């Protein structure tokens, strides 16, 4: 009954917006308040069956009550309503807020999807995954003279790169419903804090920026958000990692005589086995990651600073950001904690503090008619997962998970060149943008592994973006491609159609390629190819 009511409500909203002929940004108080927003439906269909052979056995649906993910599954039907309010209070003072609510109808359209998550022991996460409302952003802008204070819940964006993040490090991302494919404005998780900029009067347009995210009160630390286990975009990396780790641990413990031959670690360790077999382990660890998030406290205050200037034709900046890692790592004593009977058994991970130093630049070059841009980040003591977290200190016989840290250096170089190709488009240029990313792990150890790299000490990525516009920019085709030199890739073709002032429709695909399931970005998800579409009514 509830399911039918939800569907009726959804259809009613869709029909309502189709019937509207004239809608406009609502203004009040002599135009000082402006209310805008949108209603959007994001839908997606799988092109391939799910990775059932991740560990030699079905990953999903071991209880036999669900099919797992299959080609043709309409796995995403997310409906979002977003309301934005901009209020000019007085000169040099304004306020901005976004409220957002969403409902993913796919779980009601196909009951097997919910069963997938139940089978994976993430039933308690279904409600939040399916629907939610939030005050997404709310901040005040005060800008007297050369100062700019932005205080409240906000997104703060640094960096020059597209498609992959390097200097865009302040806000975590929500990977849960469509990985990192949606616009990042929609999947960045806004944080409470202050962003203060002072523009120093000078010919070089120097500005100094200070970012403070207190971490106290209700403004606590937020990590990246992952999909619950059993959901379509549940982390391929975690799936692969934990299964390999359990195998590695089983092998070690068998050799040490700590495990009878024929037994598996999953059978030995309490809490790792969910209601439906080994698939519960992933959600158990994900639940633990959530419980390991540090409490609200001023001691969790994250700080960043950036200096920007125009030096000749070069727009440059240097920055430093001291914060907790948005991805967790195992605590050194996690196995001991797992054995304990106190609440610490649930907190197996930690979000370590990192210091990231970096720089960015962009410059226009007359000879090539292109803009060149770049950024680099040096991270001190970046943590990595051990390949085998089930290690034991042989001298003491105690569990001792080896943790790995290493300084890393990453950089991106890119170019943007609008190019005229009259044969293909007389009115519009083709925007061509290419990038190379490289990351070096400076103290690489063969026993470490990482969420965003294959098991190498150097990662090299190339990306290419091409887009243009036809029919007075009512038809907007685009293709984005990525190639990782270790052997994975991603192609995203899409086209958007603009109808009138309010409607936009689009269709696209994500083609994911990987020659090894171990590869980080798409290895565990290489069968998650999909076709997606959206309809958006914005005013």
């Amino acid at each position, binding site marked *: 009954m509830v399911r039918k009511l939800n569907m009726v409500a959804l259809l009613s909203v869709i029909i309502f917006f189709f019937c509207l002929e004239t809608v406009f940004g609502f203004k009040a108080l002599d135009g000082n308040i402006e209310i805008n927003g949108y209603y959007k439906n994001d839908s997606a269909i799988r092109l391939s069956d799910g990775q059932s052979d991740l560990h030699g056995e079905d990953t999903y649906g071991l209880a036999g009550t669900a099919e797992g993910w299959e080609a043709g599954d309409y796995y995403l039907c997310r409906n979002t309503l977003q309301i934005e309010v901009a209020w000019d209070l007085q000169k040099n003072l304004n306020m901005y807020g976004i409220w957002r609510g969403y409902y993913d109808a796919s779980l009601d359209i196909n009951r097997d999807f919910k069963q997938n998550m139940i089978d994976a022991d993430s039933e308690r996460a279904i409600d939040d995954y399916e629907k939610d409302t939030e005050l997404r952003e709310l901040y005040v802008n005060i800008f007297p003279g050369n100062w*700019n204070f932005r205080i409240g819940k906000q997104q703060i964006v640094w960096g020059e790169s597209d498609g992959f993040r390097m200097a865009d490090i302040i806000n975590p991302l929500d990977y849960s419903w469509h990985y990192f494919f949606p616009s990042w404005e929609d999947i960045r998780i806004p944080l409470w804090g202050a962003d203060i900029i002072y523009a120093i009067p000078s010919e070089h347009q120097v500005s100094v920026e200070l970012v403070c995210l207190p971490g106290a009160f209700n403004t606590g630390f937020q990590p990246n958000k992952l999909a619950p286990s059993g959901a379509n975009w549940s982390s391929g990396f975690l799936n692969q990692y934990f299964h390999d780790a359990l195998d590695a641990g089983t092998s070690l413990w068998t050799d040490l005589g700590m495990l009878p031959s024929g037994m598996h670690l999953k059978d030995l360790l309490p809490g790792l086995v969910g209601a439906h077999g080994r698939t519960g382990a992933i959600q158990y660890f994900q639940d633990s990651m959530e419980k390991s998030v540090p409490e609200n406290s001023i001691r969790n205050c994250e700080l960043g600073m950036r200096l920007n200037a125009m030096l000749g034709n070069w727009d440059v900046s240097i920055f430093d950001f001291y914060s907790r890692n948005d991805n967790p790592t195992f605590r050194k004593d996690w196995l001991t904690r797992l054995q304990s009977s106190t609440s610490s058994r649930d907190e197996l991970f930690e979000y370590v503090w990192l210091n990231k130093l970096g720089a960015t630049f962009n410059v226009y070059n007359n000879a090539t008619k292109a803009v060149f841009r770049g950024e680099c980040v040096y991270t001190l003591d970046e943590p990595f997962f051990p390949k085998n977290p089930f290690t034991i200190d042989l001298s003491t016989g105690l569990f001792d998970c080896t943790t790995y840290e290493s300084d890393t250096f990453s950089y991106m170089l890119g170019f943007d060149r609008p190019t005229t190709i009259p044969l293909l488009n007389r009115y519009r240029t083709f925007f061509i943008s290419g990038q190379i990313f490289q990351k070096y792990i400076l103290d690489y150890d063969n026993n470490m592994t990482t969420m965003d790299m294959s098991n190498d000490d150097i990662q090299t990525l190339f990306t290419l973006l091409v887009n243009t516009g036809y029919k007075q920019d009512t038809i907007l085709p685009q293709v984005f491609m990525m190639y990782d030199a270790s052997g994975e890739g991603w192609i995203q073709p899409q086209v958007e159609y603009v109808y009138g002032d309010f409607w936009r429709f689009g269709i696209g695909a994500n083609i994911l390629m990987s020659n090894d399931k171990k590869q980080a970005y798409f290895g565990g998800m290489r069968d998650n190819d999909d076709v997606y579409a959206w309809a958006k009514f914005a005013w």
Partner: protein
Amino acid sequence: MIKNKKLETGMAVFILCIFLTPLFLPSLVRAEAPEKNRLIDKSNVDEIKDELPPSYYFRVKEWGHTFKIKPVYSPAHDFKPSKGYTEATKKNIGGKVKIDPKMGLINYYDHGGLPFPNPKNGVELGWNIRWYYTGDDFGYPYTMHLIDAKGRERKVKGDWHQIHWAGRTDLEPLGQLPNPKGVSMKEVFWQLYPYEMKDSVVLNVRYFDSQKNDDMWIYIASMRRIRRMSTAQRCDSFVGSVNNWDDIRICNSKPYAMTYKLLGKKDIYIGKNQKDDPEYNVKSYGQSTNEIIEKWPVYILEVKSKDPNYSYGNKIIYVDVETSKPIVAEMTDRKGRPWKMINMPQRMLSDRMDCVAYDVYDLQSRCTSLYDLHTLDIMNKDPEPDMFTIAYMKKVGR
């Protein structure tokens, strides 16, 4: 008795005249109307074909557009440039301003005015087009109506502000603002509508150095980020409209990037002295239904890009002799076929020369872009120079 009869007769005639006068008055008015507001349509446009820009003739013949003409020269209008600009222009008489291939103009930026009061060739007229009187700054909100061949319409709204960094004649500091980088002009475009473009801001900076491309940054609201843009492809469409970046205000190109040829001077019907705000019939390829044009002397200037990949073959600009302001432009494609037409009618008020409309017609695809300029050209508002900086873009961005 006789006296009374004469009086009566006289009064009868008088009264009769009063009653009969209205019958004659309209005919008196009608007798005057054809000379002031003659309607031109398909049936009679051939009579004035040689006195019209060819694109006007095309629109009448092919699209059924109409307009009215005043066949006689209008009385003098009220507009005069400011005293500062007029004095500065006098300083330039006698060829004091020179053209340098690298630096643009020499002996100009510290005092401004019309650089070549008596232009001898196309290049000098090209520079005049860049520096005709617009005050030391101007700005106005606009609504752009993008209309396709079937009459379907979309809107883009924005707010445009431009400031002269050099050649200032009206506001302190005269001459130049602090200018270590040799900036000649800065402008910002704030996008207000539709939703996807709202809160995006474009900052464009132009330099004295003719060979140096403009610098441009865009705050893209959906990315929450400022992005540096290449300005080399100036023939790219402006936010999806029929016109490109070089077509803004008819001729916004870098003078060094173009060749100029003065084809002559002629009396032509143009919209220099419009009285009313334009009204449009969107379904009829954006026809202005109350356009009245009158004969004025214009320079005819041919502009060609030095870039072999430029989208236009050439651009013919009809430049008002009195003000050096371009009023009409016609562009061909690379095969020499008529392609686009820009009509930028003016209104000559006592304190400003107001651009009442900016209409761009694609003669091949029948799409049009009509700019509804809400308010008059607001000149000399004296905005803070800091408004034209990257830091300001970050302030106003969401």
